[in-house]
């Protein structure tokens, strides 16, 4: 099922532990996630370098978002404090 494939892809991109296990034995991990034999074979053909490079790129994006959300949060507090002082 498409949804199962996407769920596993999302985990592979976001979770380094499952990614390492997948790279050691892709068909086993796919089967554990409910993929059909055809889907398991197709997933196993993914190139390890592609997957690792993409995952690293996604991780950087996630970290960047965290950084920005942290900054926004601080900024909101500064603004609130400024409003409070002027009031």
């Amino acid at each position, binding site marked *: *099922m*498409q*949804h199962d*494939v*996407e*769920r596993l*892809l*999302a*985990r592979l*991109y*976001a*979770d380094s532990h499952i990614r390492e296990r997948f790279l050691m034995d892709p068909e086993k991990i796919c089967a554990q996630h409910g993929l059909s034999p*055809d*889907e398991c074979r*197709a*997933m196993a*053909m*993914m*190139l390890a*370098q*592609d*997957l*690792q*490079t*993409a995952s*690293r*790129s*996604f*991780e950087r*994006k*996630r970290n960047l*978002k965290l950084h920005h959300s942290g900054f926004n949060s601080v900024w909101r507090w500064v603004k609130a404090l400024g409003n409070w002082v002027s009031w």
Partner: protein
Amino acid sequence: MQKDRVGLGWRPELALGIFKNLDQIDILEVIGNDYLGASQRDALRLLARQVPLHIHGIDLGMAGSEDVNSKRLDRLARLINQVEPEAWSEHLAFVRAGEVEIGHLAAPPRTEASVENTTKNLRKAAGIVGSLPLMENIATLVQPPCSSLSEQQWISRIAAASDCGLLLDLHNVYANATNFSFDPAQFLAEIPMEKVCCIHIAGGRWISSPDGSQQYLLDDHLHEVTEPVYRLLSEVAARANQPLTVILERDGEYPPMEALLQELQRTRAAIAAGRQRRVELEKVAADAA
């Protein structure tokens, strides 16, 4: 008839330079997610009264097999209804699945099932927002496994089934073509060019795989647009009948505004070269007839 237009992605860091040079910028594109608060919507509405505006969404995950989230659509609908942009856009990507947030745009398996679900999500979005988004092709470092359609077929089928327009990102086409060894001009020949309403151009950089064995062109929007992308833009301008709206995307490491304006000039020249080629080809065809 509307003319070809060239514009810039709105970023707060560029605000002053943009306002000083609005005579050279036909249109702006704003990342919608940054402006969902009430006061931010007011600011954006003010901006939209001064210059044509597109709103660009980045986290709906329209092409995933999960239903697009109604609350996210509601928030975007409030923004769009208040700002009244010319158009809004999203990506042919999934960004989450099974409670896992990927953090960015990922390519789903290109199948009939994802065509069907994307179409369903687009109808839902149009129902809530009031209009269909333009849908953008993405850059990917992984060929989506379990795919039964080429990217061109997949895009064409979604555009046909949903009747959405396309936002054609030429750096994404170029990066994918470079990383997966296909001809980007052939890609352009195989998508429904008449559906292309808007174009993105950007720059990228080379990165290595963690083990250093492979090189990839990354679409990072942090570098200037390169000649191959301008050539693809000329190709589109030669193929398309309709007026084109081209947005230059830059997300950081900002150069002086002068450099961005020069890139906009280079963009206009690339479009003009393509349009000229089209005129010459039409003349040759007419003479032959």
